[in-house]
């Protein structure tokens, strides 16, 4: 996602390549490039200047290290500076209070309603009872939107048809959550401009009335130079406790994140990475800095996989594998689990080294579509016992899914090989177990 920034920095470092050590002159060139790259990445002008000044000082101080190439040294210096700017460690959301009250605030179109639901989903998956409250009484159908999302993730939504006072809706929602023993209540509010005094007072009143434990400022990662002013204005009124950075799955360089963190000194707690309800990640400052430098983010990938993979389903498939009963039906359910993890390109982008390679590559989300189509065209019996799929069945499947018969053959062959491979693996495991059973193997 920070592809552009990292490739620009790489270019900046290239100026240093082939030079023995960092001097005031050659660092000046590079620093200028870094500054331009940062500004181009929407990092606030003043902050970019500040960062590059620090980098310059550190770089010149480090010129004694002749064993490391200047380029690598600069990477490290920039990385260190970015990590420092992002604030070192991951920050969790508050669990204080009963219920924990979370207030969402931000500009129009930043993604408050979507992220209210994503956050509710996130909390629900942690096993807590959660509720949402629809307090956006201004935008047409905003309440309806939250209701639809609530139904999607199976989280109750508190709303008052006809009540045009968000302060009283919020207060009633908190009361309602208490009465219904919800552990967390998330209050969605209308988007507002930082310069709209009346609306800013309104959200100030909501805060005073419900005394939230957590106030999250929702901000579009694509925001430009004004991010600093907006964040400051919201912080002045709300003294918010954290930031949700949305739409990071775009190709924005996301410099606004850096600016906001620096100016209001509030942690970024979550990042929104897609349109699916699962596409919400905890913000990891260290990973983000590494990402800026194009080092990938394998940890996020693994965590997301763990989160989405249904434990029971995995166990069930594992068992079937052991018994050599893996069927097309299981295969289909595995594909569906992978698809739940989100956009394939995003997933691949998190693997170190891959991000840059696939920058311009078209990775279709439909990679599995044909395979699924073929399996869907099989009868339940065929899926369970693939061995019965003879020539005429193949022909029927092919015409049923609109793919070539060769493609059907190929899938059957691959599936067969996969089963054979699993069988071999099982044998080894089985052998290990049986050997353990022998007295001398203890």
């Amino acid at each position, binding site marked *: 996602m920070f592809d552009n920034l990292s490739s620009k920095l790489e270019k900046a470092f290239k100026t240093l390549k082939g030079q023995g050590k960092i001097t005031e002159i050659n660092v000046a060139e590079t620093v200028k490039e870094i500054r331009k790259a940062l500004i181009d990445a929407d990092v606030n002008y003043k902050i970019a200047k500040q960062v590059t000044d620090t980098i310059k000082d550190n770089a010149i101080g480090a010129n004694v290290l002749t064993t490391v190439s200047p380029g690598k040294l600069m990477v490290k210096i920039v990385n260190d500076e970015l990590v420092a700017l992002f604030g070192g460690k991951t920050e969790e959301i508050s669990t204080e209070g009963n219920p924990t009250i979370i207030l969402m605030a931000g500009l129009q179109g930043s993604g408050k309603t979507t992220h209210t639901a994503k956050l509710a989903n996130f909390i629900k998956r942690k096993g807590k009872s959660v509720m949402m409250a629809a307090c956006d009484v201004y935008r047409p159908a905003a309440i309806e939107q939250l*209701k639809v*999302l609530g139904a999607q993730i199976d989280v109750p939504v508190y709303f008052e048809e006809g009540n045009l006072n968000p302060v009283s809706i919020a207060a009633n929602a908190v009361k309602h959550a208490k009465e219904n023993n919800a552990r967390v209540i998330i209050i969605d509010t209308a988007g507002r401009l930082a310069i709209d005094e009346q609306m800013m007072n309104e959200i100030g009143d909501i805060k005073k009335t419900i005394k939230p434990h957590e106030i999250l400022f929702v901000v579009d990662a694509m*925001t430009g130079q004004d991010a600093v002013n907006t964040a400051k204005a919201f912080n002045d009124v709300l003294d918010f406790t954290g930031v949700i950075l949305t739409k990071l799955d775009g190709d924005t360089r996301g410099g606004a994140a850096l600016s906001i963190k620096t100016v209001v000194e509030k942690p970024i707690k979550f990042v929104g990475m897609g349109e699916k309800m699962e596409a919400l990640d905890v913000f990891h400052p260290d990973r983000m800095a590494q990402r800026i430098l194009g080092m990938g983010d394998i940890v996020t990938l693994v965590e997301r996989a763990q989160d989405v993979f249904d434990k029971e389903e995995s166990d069930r498939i594992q068992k079937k594998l052991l018994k050599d009963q893996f069927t097309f039906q299981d295969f289909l359910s595995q594909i569906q689990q992978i698809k739940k993890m989100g956009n394939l390109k995003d997933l691949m982008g998190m693997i170190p080294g891959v991000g840059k390679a696939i920058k311009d590559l078209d990775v279709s989300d439909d990679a599995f579509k044909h395979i699924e189509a073929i399996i869907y065209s099989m009868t339940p019996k065929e899926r369970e016992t693939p061995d019965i799929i003879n020539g005429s069945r193949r022909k029927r499947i092919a015409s049923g899914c609109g793919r070539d018969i060769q493609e059907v053959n190929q899938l059957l062959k691959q599936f067969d090989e996969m089963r054979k491979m699993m069988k071999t693996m099982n044998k080894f495991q089985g052998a290990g177990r049986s050997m353990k059973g022998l007295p001398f193997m203890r």
Partner: protein
Amino acid sequence: MGIFSFFSKEKKEKLDQGLEKTKTSLFEKISKALVGKSSVDDDFLDKLEEILVTSDVGIETTLKIIDRLQKRVAKDKYTGTSELQNLLRQEIALLLDENKSEIPVDFSDLQGKKPYVIMVVGVNGVGKTTTIGKLANQFKKAGKKVVLGAGDTFRAAAVQQLKIWGERNEVHVVEHGMNTDPASVAFDAVKYAVDNGADVCIIDTAGRLHNKINLMTELSKIKRVMSKVLDGTPHEILLVLDASTGQNAFEQAKQFTAATEVNALALTKLDGTAKGGVVIGVADQFKIPVKYIGVGEGIDDLQLFNKHEFVDSLFKS
């Protein structure tokens, strides 16, 4: 009718108000930077760079403006603050002018098309649906019969949102409900407009990030389908940009243009940002004209963009 006269006094006040933040920032900052200076030195140019960059003009365009200004100053010999303001104003006006495009002077001019079909595209949350609501209002006020197509069938309650705008404006909304094929909504909306003698047909689409290839392909398809009903449609492919967006706006314009041949821009939320500067950068960097600007939350707060008025507004003290 003169270029300026279409702006009624009231409209102009709204533009001035909407740009209040931009105006005071740009104008006052430049004045401040000039205090006690008798010549254009590096220090001033540095400050000017900062002012323009922090107004989201973008680094390329900023450097271009500064470069031109330097040349002008060397040639014309600058003497006072007001003169420099003037030079800068001329340069910015020139940048906007280079982008040769004919923006109609009012909403009743549909360039001889009936129905005039507009397809609205953009990333999530820029204000597409709201812009459509405001556009419908303006066309309606200009005495046009308007039809809307609820092509955002993806985001929760988006169809509902457009229908509410339809009710407010008393215009017909063609819809197939949520999670239906947006291309077929577009097809039916244009068909309805043709069959019912509508003057304007505006098609909403779901917000999408421009790096999602599947979604961009879907957009191309929606566009293609319309021409099957009526050749040459959509006449206008309107990319909606949020004025508070930074440099990513350029990438958005590039990708959406690649997918759908965008030929007009709408800049929304201009009232909320100190950074109307993005208009200058956008006009300079793409050769797509800014056609509409959103300057407030009211249903009437959408205007056809007039570059002369805009520059005037920026520099009026």
